[in-house]
């Protein structure tokens, strides 16, 4: 991962800190830094979100397109992730420098969203076997301050929450072809059900313990990090009281970055730690998104964007 040099004694200091469960800014091993979220920042996209986690800045736009479903899955839509590392983040991303990192993140996202229990692609189906929605999720990394995967997954979930699919008004059958008429009214649209959409949690192994939300310096100290994709809880994303019987969070993907290794025991405890952290994240994200939705319902949306 992109980063700068760090001296050996600084590493010793960080490692001892993690062992004492007291990191250099006072956080414990499962605390996140404060984040800032805004949805609907790109007016041309069907859905968008911007998330800032300390110095990491992510912009996500969702584009929708009508496509033909795959013959083996006629009832399912499609979703595709594309990550772009802006050279603004670090000079190392210039040219093709960020390509490897971008591919890693997008394939991890793709795998995390692959399971039907994580993201239900049936809701993207328009006409079985003939037409479906295809979602292009474009992720732009504007600034790199550590912990990219978590920030990306949060921003993607927020953008999908913000995505509106236009309703189909009429369909004309002409031989084998279908001609769809979509509603022009921006309010005549349906939301996606993203309650179970997964969040990624990076667990950085520093010394013998794992921490979430590593800073850039902490990332330099660890030889291996584990990325766990954990499905969400739909209860966090709805206001009405018809509580769905508690759904247990499931782990939808695991991947490892770095040259080190993990023992099975550490792996197990790390995954458990990841699920706990993901649950907290999911709760906070749902809370923030509902608050924003509430705000927009009686106030005109004021865009803040990047201006401080």
């Amino acid at each position: 991962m992109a980063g700068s040099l760090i001296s050996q004694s600084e590493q010793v200091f960080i490692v001892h800190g993690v062992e004492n469960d007291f990191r250099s800014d006072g956080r414990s091993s499962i605390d996140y830094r404060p984040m800032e979220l805004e949805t609907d920042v790109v007016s041309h996209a069907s859905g968008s979100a911007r998330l800032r986690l300390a110095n990491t800045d992510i912009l996500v736009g969702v584009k929708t397109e009508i496509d033909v479903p795959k013959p083996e899955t006629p009832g399912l839509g499609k979703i595709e992730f594309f990550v772009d590392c802006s050279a603004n983040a670090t000079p190392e991303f210039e040219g093709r420098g960020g390509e490897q990192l971008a591919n890693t993140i997008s394939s991890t996202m793709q795998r995390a969203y692959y399971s039907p229990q994580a993201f239900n692609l049936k809701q993207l189906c328009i006409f079985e076997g003939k037409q479906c929605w295809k979602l292009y999720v474009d992720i732009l990394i504007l600034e790199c301050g550590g912990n990219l995967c978590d920030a990306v997954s949060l921003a993607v979930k927020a953008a999908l929450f913000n995505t509106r699919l236009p309703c189909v008004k009429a369909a004309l059958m002409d031989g084998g072809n279908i001609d769809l008429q979509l509603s022009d009214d921006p309010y005549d649209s349906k939301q996606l059900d993203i309650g179970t959409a997964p969040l990624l949690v990076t667990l950085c192994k520093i010394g013998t313990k794992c921490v979430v939300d590593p800073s850039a310096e902490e990332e330099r100290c660890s030889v291996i990090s584990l990325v766990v994709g954990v499905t969400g809880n739909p209860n966090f994303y709805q206001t009405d009281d018809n509580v769905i019987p508690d759904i247990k969070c499931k782990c939808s993907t695991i991947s490892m970055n770095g040259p080190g290794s993990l023992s099975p025991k550490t792996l197990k405890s790390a995954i458990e730690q990841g699920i706990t952290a993901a649950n907290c994240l999911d709760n906070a994200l749902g809370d923030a998104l509902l608050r924003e939705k509430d705000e927009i319902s009686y106030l005109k949306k004021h865009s803040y964007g990047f201006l401080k």
Partner: protein
Amino acid sequence: MTGHVSIRLASERVNHSVATSNELPRFYTPGEVISGMQDFMRGHGTYTEDDNLKSSVAGVMQKVNKLICIRPLKSRYVGEIGDVVVGRVLEVQQRRWKVDTNSRLDSILQLSSVNLPGGELRRRSVEDEQSMRKVLQEGDLISAEVQSVFSDGSLSLHTRSLKYGKLVQGTLVKVFPSLIKRRKNHFHNILGISIIIGNNGYIWISPREKESTENDDLENIEKAKLEPVSISIREIMARVKNCIAALVASKMMLDDTSILMAYEESLKYETAKEMLDPEAMLDIAFLTQHRLNYVTTE
């Protein structure tokens, strides 16, 4: 065990400004006309175009008689002789180290301007040249003083005093160099820890070094430097780090007084991690600003 996660909305963003008086200094943006008259002298951060004096950076104006300068808010460090800096070794070269000091060009630390182990002053031999990596290697942090400034603006450093040299355990905080207040002393031993406020905007927070007894040999000293730091010291260091972050977010000048005051104000927050929230940061900065104003009016 639950973690602490806070996601706020952009509409709930905290304004970090703590300016008490209503008269903010006039802020110039690049390309803005400062004066249309010719009887001013062009200083740093300005250029002339079509008989107008324009600003080339974003910052505030400084006027000395007829000389107009624009001091940028955010800029790279512009070194001056005698400044205390904190830097990171980037490269080991022939008889010198390349050091990152947040200036436009990498600074240079000559082998002849360091105190070699052993303490006594002696000629630099070929062996010294070959074992430079034993003294400082890539990634190491040092504190140093600016010895001279070359014509291209790059700095030459020296560490020929016992207070300078390699830094061991601790954390580095990076801030804008323009926020560092120039003081006689930039080494502070307060609150049971030591803080080096580098003029280049790099601040080093570390546990206070233990007094080494004379009969300790070198190896023991090296080992003692990597001993775990106690949790109480860590708590103080984290607090100081978060205080500096709070002051920087509100663009307040940093020196030992402001850091100490911010630390005292921060004590009402029970744990250091509570100080990461923007509201707490603003609160600390505001109270510090208030106390600073009170001190200056006394």
